[in-house]
């Protein structure tokens, strides 16, 4: 054999083998079947490995998102914007005007004006400047707050579940564009309560004074190609919600409001000013909108360039100071040794992780990060400029110049902002991640869940019957005899679908219950009762007797399959709408669903069940404040986080808990 093999030259042997593999000898179909079988075999044998790799790489990717090596610097994409290319005219005279307005606003605050009187005063001040102005009264009645009387002060405490003062008055003015017919508009707004006022009642006095002073200042110039709308909204979020709803003619149940007397064109962009302190050191940018929408990145980038180069104010994300630039923020966290923290990569990672986590918090619950978020529901790109309270060095002069120049940039727009990114994660004020760098994390996990579900589907379709063979021929290798006796079995899909639909119906019932006035008024008493009631429903599964028929797959397996496949679909689809929510889902739902399975001991089964139910319903007991907030968000701002949790998230975990309880 050897000698004859050596007679043929090596190159010919290779050629022959190549020819053998290309030119088919024998049955083509047989070869194809064998090839396909081999391929399927390779995949199925390594399926556990593939699934584990998918999950691990997905979760690791999440940890990589804040890495300083991922992502890139921001840039302006829309050529028309030309940020910072103009000379600004806002000067110390205008600062003096703002100071005067501030003094009079302080008198109004101390004079305990009603919100209606205050709006009237603001409207008159706009009128004195020669700008058409008006006021708008509104009143929200929700299950979390039923309002009847006029409010005096606009602060409300967050601890109290019934947000009381939900009626108020907005003041607004429309500066008609001298150059155009008023088909487009941009908005500068300030809410009466500052974002830090949500906790302690701080008012946005300097923000409102800035708006008034800017109104007088901007009117002097003739280069505006878009109408400028000045809005001073009452409360923190609700006033702007009422104003925007009226502007766009959208009716909302539970809200009664006056129609707007003045209107303008389509609003493309909006700036919300939040200046609560005496002076500020940085301008923080807040951008997350309602239901996970984000503004076009060009708006953030233009503002960033203008603030840094025109006004000379450093920009931060939120109020997070960069430890690499600000010595004040350069402190290592208590759990990290100083030496490790001093490595620049670690420092950058921690800073960016802080930004990403904050972003996810704002985006996941759909509430957005401030008043600007409300604009997003009407396709308006908006951000909040937050003047970070400090003892200095900046004040009205810097913020006025920034806003003036940003308005000039927005005025340059010829079409809606569209060129830059809508899907991104900001890791720093000048750094961001494109969609391709963060989306795969959630998608990989959702793929892992899908693979797991599909492999369980195959498991459910087959049953092993090897008892007879082994008993009669004990000497034969058992693996061979087992292979021979794989038998198909029926999968009870319809009954499982009924279980799934029932859990979703349960979710709908829970949602209508939780958002009812009765529940919200006594939620401290009713929450444990509702929790017990809904948590005990899956216990019905214990009543189901195991199927003895080997031709039918066990219900728990099919339920697990459909549960996993549905969860995977939901996660991968939510990623584009609200990535942070999808990421939270992969953590909260991913592992519990994969590991849900019945155990032999009742004790262990109940433990698993309790875990799933607590994940799904735990918010009724442990996050009551968040729950009330979420219901309020749904009723006032139409944020769909609360219904999503009740109707999609909870049922997924209830199905998993039923899987744990069903007989194996």
């Amino acid at each position, binding site marked *: 054999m050897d000698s004859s093999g050596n007679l043929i030259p090596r190159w010919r042997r290779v050629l022959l083998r190549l020819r053998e593999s290309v030119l088919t000898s024998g049955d083509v*179909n047989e070869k*194809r079947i064998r090839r396909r079988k081999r391929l399927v075999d390779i995949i199925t044998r390594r399926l556990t490995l593939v699934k584990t790799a998918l999950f691990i790489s997905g979760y690791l990717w999440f940890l990589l998102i804040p890495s300083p090596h991922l992502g890139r610097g921001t840039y302006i994409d829309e050529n028309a914007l030309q940020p910072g290319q103009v000379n600004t005219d806002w000067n110390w005279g205008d600062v003096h005007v703002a100071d005067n307005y501030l003094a009079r606003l302080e008198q109004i605050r101390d004079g305990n004006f009603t919100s209606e009187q205050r709006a009237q005063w603001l409207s008159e001040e706009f009128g004195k400047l020669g700008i058409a102005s008006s006021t708008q009264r509104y009143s929200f009645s929700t299950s979390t707050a039923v309002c009847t009387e006029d409010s005096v002060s606009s602060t409300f405490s967050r601890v109290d579940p019934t947000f009381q003062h939900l009626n108020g008055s907005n003041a607004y003015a429309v500066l008609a564009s001298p150059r155009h017919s008023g088909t487009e508009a941009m908005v500068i707004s300030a809410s009466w309560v500052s974002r830090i006022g949500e906790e302690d009642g701080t008012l946005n006095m300097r923000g409102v004074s800035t708006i008034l002073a800017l109104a007088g200042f901007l009117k002097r110039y003739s280069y505006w190609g878009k109408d400028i709308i000045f809005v001073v909204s009452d409360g923190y979020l609700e006033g702007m919600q009422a104003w925007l709803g009226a502007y766009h003619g959208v009716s909302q149940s539970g809200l009664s409001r006056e129609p707007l007397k003045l209107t303008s064109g389509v609003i493309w962009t909006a700036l919300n000013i939040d200046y609560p302190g005496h002076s500020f050191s940085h301008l923080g940018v807040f951008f997350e909108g309602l239901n996970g929408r984000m503004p076009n990145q060009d708006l953030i980038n233009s503002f960033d360039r203008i603030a840094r180069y025109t006004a000379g104010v450093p920009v931060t994300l939120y109020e997070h100071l960069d430890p690499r630039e600000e010595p004040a923020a350069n402190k290592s966290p208590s759990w990290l040794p100083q030496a490790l923290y001093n490595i620049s990569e670690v420092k950058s990672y921690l800073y960016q992780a802080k930004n990403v986590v904050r972003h996810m918090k704002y985006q996941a619950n759909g509430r957005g990060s401030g008043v600007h978020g409300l604009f997003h529901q009407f*396709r308006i790109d908006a951000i909040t400029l937050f003047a970070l309270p400090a003892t200095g060095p900046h004040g009205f002069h810097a913020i006025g110049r920034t806003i003036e120049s940003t308005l000039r940039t927005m005025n340059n727009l010829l079409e809606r902002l569209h060129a830059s990114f809508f899907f991104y994660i900001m890791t720093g004020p000048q750094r961001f991640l494109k969609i391709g760098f963060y989306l795969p994390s959630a998608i990989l996990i959702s793929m892992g869940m*899908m693979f797991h579900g599909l492999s369980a589907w195959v498991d459910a379709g087959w049953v092993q019957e090897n008892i007879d063979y082994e008993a009669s021929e004990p000497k034969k290798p058992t693996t061979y005899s087992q292979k*021979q006796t794989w038998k198909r079995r029926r999968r009870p899909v319809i009954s499982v679908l009924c279980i799934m639909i029932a859990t979703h119906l349960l979710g709908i019932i829970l949602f209508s219950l939780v958002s009812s006035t009765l529940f919200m008024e006594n939620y401290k008493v009713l929450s444990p009762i509702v929790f017990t009631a809904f948590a005990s429903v899956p216990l019905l599964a214990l009543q189901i007797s195991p199927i003895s028929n080997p031709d039918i797959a066990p219900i728990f397996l099919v339920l697990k399959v459909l549960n996993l*496949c549905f969860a995977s679909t939901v996660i991968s*689809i939510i990623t*584009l709408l609200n990535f942070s929510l999808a990421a939270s889902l992969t953590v909260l739902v991913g592992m519990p669903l994969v590991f849900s399975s019945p155990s032999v001991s009742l004790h262990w089964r109940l433990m698993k069940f309790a875990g799933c139910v607590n994940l799904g319903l735990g918010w009724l007991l442990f996050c009551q404040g968040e729950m009330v907030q979420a219901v309020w968000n749904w009723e006032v701002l139409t944020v769909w986080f609360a219904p999503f949790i009740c109707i999609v998230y909870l049922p997924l975990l209830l199905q998993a808990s039923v899987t744990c309880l069903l007989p194996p």
Partner: protein
Amino acid sequence: MASKSTRTTFSNFQASFLALTAVRLWISLTDLSITLKHDHQLSSPLTSFSQLQEGIYLFKHDIDPYSGGSFRHSPILLSFFATILPNSRKLASVLWTLIDAAGAWSLVQIWRSRQNVISSPWDILIASLYLLNPYIFLPSLALSTSSFENTLMLLSIMLASQGRASASLLALSLLLHLSLSSIVMLLPILLLLINDPHSHLASPKPMANSLRKMVPLFGEFTVYTGILTILSTIVAGSWAWIPQTWGATLTLPDLTPNTGLWWYFFTEMFDHFRPFFLMVFSVHLLIYVVPTCIKFQHDPLYATFIMLGILGTFKPYTTLSDPGLFLSMIAIFPETYPYLRHPIVTALLHLHSALLMPLFHHLWLTQGTGNANFFYATTLVFACSNGAALVDSIWAGLRIAIGPPVDNYTVVQE
């Protein structure tokens, strides 16, 4: 005893059917239809209710509705709504529900004639698979006239299965007037008329009947279509309706987005390639007819079903109800289920596309963070899921003839 038990199941079926219809009616009378009316996925320019109302308004004010570019409904629908029915939304909702109920009833009748039984316990399941199929339910809530097309299609198939040739051909020619693409259904329906509707998938054999029998039937269909065309011309007052209705199917003047594959392709097209690709897309629909009918000559009802799937995937101006009809019709071929190769993959694809389509539509047109490519990508996913269902149905319909799988043997396609 036996006859009594059949009667009770029969009346059970009727009671459940009425209950289902009542639920549908209750939902259709809510304000959902106002919000859904303008949804691109539920009604196309050729089936939209608001455009129909506009046409009726113009017609009643002695303006030729076909002189503008917005009204593309058949003159038959125009005369029907302008004379017999008052133009009210509530009444329209009732009518649409009844039309769907008629469709479901026809589907049950088709099932019964295929199984050759008077009634069966599965009847109500089949009816509910039609009435509660969201792809059929939602366009009906949006008052899209595609519900009429579906019902006419099912009526025609039902009458053909029962051997009532004239009525079936009349229904088909009415359908042809509502939607020109349904011309591809003519051959399978004619085959169905000269054969029986029972399942012969497991024992394929060349068709015994002579094709010559189809000639008088075809003649009858031509006569009906001719008469309806003349009636339409009388109603419309001129021939102007033809380019506006039938012509729109061939020349695609309105590129409003829909769930089909045509609109984006022709949005992107350079004008000088347009006629060529319009021809390619239209002929593409036709090339499936003969091969499908030859392959499934032993079971023309299955050929009809396959053609419905092709129509739902590839026709111009689709709405969700076109693929919906195909998916609901899978219910009447239970003998093929064990031979489907990847039912769970198809189901998951459909789940993905059913969730992705409204989402990307929203991202593009409401939220403004997406663009047309997003929605087009999901229509591609939707086409893939329809294609997967179609290919799997064809496979199962042919594979069944070889019999149940045997260990260590595999069936492949040459």
